[in-house]
């Protein structure tokens, strides 16, 4: 592929973000499943990470909504649908094979609804997602373009980890991963970072203490990370 439009580069970025958000949501729900074996109210903490009200009658209701309800913007189904939406217009960049993993993921998620053991029936989704990323890696030849999808992926992961109050060591690791990707972006291209906002994230993630106190500031800065720099004369 020798030329790619702004529209397609944005699609790649959001494909990366939504595919990752889907994956993390799925993994978190799997952990919650386990937690709720012992504590029926175990999902409340998860809701609080995203500032959501508890409007669920029980843990079953919660799980169902966060797995399958496409009208719930925090559900796995919603994220997967958005990933697919972005992927469908990228066929010639990411290949029909790569897309087929998203279609398979959709089918697997839908079919799991009617299975007796949902947790068990969701297991193959992990394999499918790893295959998806392997396929992305295989099919996008241009490093600069491939990097955009990974920026989406790593930025999403850092954002989710901070919201979900992951331990500092994990967050720090993901931040370094994101920075490596950010440094590959040439100056003057749309996914070049805004130094001011990146500095804020660097400051907050400087020490465990600052992270615990100011992670909100870092999350906000991530939102603005690709805003154009103001030029002062």
């Amino acid at each position, binding site marked *: *592929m*020798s*030329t*790619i*439009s*702004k*529209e*397609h*580069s*944005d699609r790649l970025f959001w494909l990366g973000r939504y595919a990752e958000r889907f994956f993390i949501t799925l993994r978190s729900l799997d952990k919650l499943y386990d937690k709720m074996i012992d504590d029926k109210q175990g999902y409340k903490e998860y809701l609080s990470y995203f500032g959501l009200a508890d409007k669920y009658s029980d843990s079953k209701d919660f799980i169902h909504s966060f797995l399958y309800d496409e009208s719930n913007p925090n559900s796995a189904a919603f994220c997967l649908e958005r990933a697919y939406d972005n992927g*469908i*217009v990228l*066929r*010639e960049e990411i*290949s*029909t094979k790569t*897309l*087929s993993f998203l*279609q*398979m993921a959709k*089918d697997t998620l839908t079919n799991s609804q009617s299975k007796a053991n949902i947790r068990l029936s969701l297991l193959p989704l992990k394999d499918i997602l790893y295959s998806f990323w392997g396929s992305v890696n295989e099919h996008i030849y241009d490093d600069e373009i491939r990097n955009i999808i990974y920026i989406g992926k790593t930025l999403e992961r850092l954002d989710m980890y901070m919201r979900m109050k992951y331990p500092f060591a994990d967050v720090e690791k993901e931040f370094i991963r994101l920075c490596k990707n950010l440094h590959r972006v*040439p100056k*003057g*291209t*749309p996914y070049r970072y805004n130094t001011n906002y990146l500095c804020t994230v660097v400051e907050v993630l400087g020490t465990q203490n600052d992270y615990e106190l100011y992670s909100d500031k870092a999350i906000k800065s991530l939102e603005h990370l690709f805003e154009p720099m103001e030029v002062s004369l």
Partner: protein
Amino acid sequence: MTQQNIEQFTKPVGNANEINELLRRYGVKFGIYKNGVFNEQFFPFDPIPRVISSEDFKSIEKGLVQRVNALNEFLFDIYHDKNIVKDGVIPENFIYISKGYLAQCEGITPKNRIYSHISGIDLVQAKDGEWYILEDNLRIPSGASYPLIARELTRIAAPDAFSENEIVDNRNYAKLLKETMDYANCGGVSAILTPGRYNAAYFEHSYLAEHTGSVLVQNDELFVEDNILYHRTYSGGKTRIGVLYRRIADEYLDPLNFLPESLIGIPNLMEAYRSGNVGIINAPGNGVADDKGIYYFVPKMIKYYLGEEPILKNAPTYLPFYDNDMKYVMDNLGKLVIKDVAEAGGYGVVFGSDLTKEKLEEFRKTIIAEPRRFIAQEVIDFLDLPILNNGETVMRKADLRAFVLSGETTKVWASGLTRFSRNPDSFVVNSSQGGGFKDTWVLKTST
């Protein structure tokens, strides 16, 4: 291989569910609007292949190459000297009343004088084995991607069928298409222009882009500067486009030359094209050659331009425009099929046998009042094909869209899109009407 041998192929190849499952997985879909809501549907695949003997295919191939070459000559002639009109072979008003004729294209000569790079010619086989041309599609014929991916998947699901039978591999379509695009290229990258993902054929646009290594573009990513077509890249640069395989209709192509209200076109594309800086596949203005009224004259074109006898027959057609034909149509209206030349996609087609006495009389008057508007054809006794319906084999009407690619030479893809109707009484095989498709096997020469 004789017709006798062909008839042995009535068994499903592989398991229909398995293959449809694979088609699902690979997202083989077409979009459809129902009550204003966009839905993507999976295009149902029937596992009993249509089989064409190598002898049959050789004659179809020769006939199609001849036909498309004549049509390309005709398009060049119409947009330049118009000799076929001056010599009285085609009445002038058949050209200029046609909606497909675009005066804006007068005098433009596309690279290598090729107008119809990708021609989709619809054929049917009659019960006596004879093939008839139903329609030429020289604008944006679609459908090649479905049999292409179906073959790929059927070979996974039913490998034995392919090792035991001598079937021509049809998976070269993308290669043929790429060669055709490269031959029309005026310098730059190849691009496929789609109106967007809510178009019925979006799967095809993106699949062909992937397999020809073209960029899939929408109009807002393109612009014409210095009469050169460019793709705006994400980093603010621009890439020159040398050939544009556009999947939008002529009228919408350039708001400064055609419909000013078009939101999916590229302003000044026609200036870039006229200057020879970009190839457009297929050429704008081709509609004049696949007009239902012009169809009648294609056999005459073949004689006129090539000095050859037509190899493939038209369905017997009458033009009420001519007195003799009008008399025949009036005497036989009840057994003919009447087509409105201005309509497309299965609309404006009336079977005389379906009309009541009063309706028939009414229609008679309409034809007398506007003879140029209609063509009349004998109803062809289609050869029905077996399809699998809930595990049972039933016979249904089917047609074949053959794809003819014109590059350095004119080539016929050794396959095609076989569409069939679900409804036992229907002649309509359109995918939007609930029909499905089959793989089309062309057998290798028997040794």
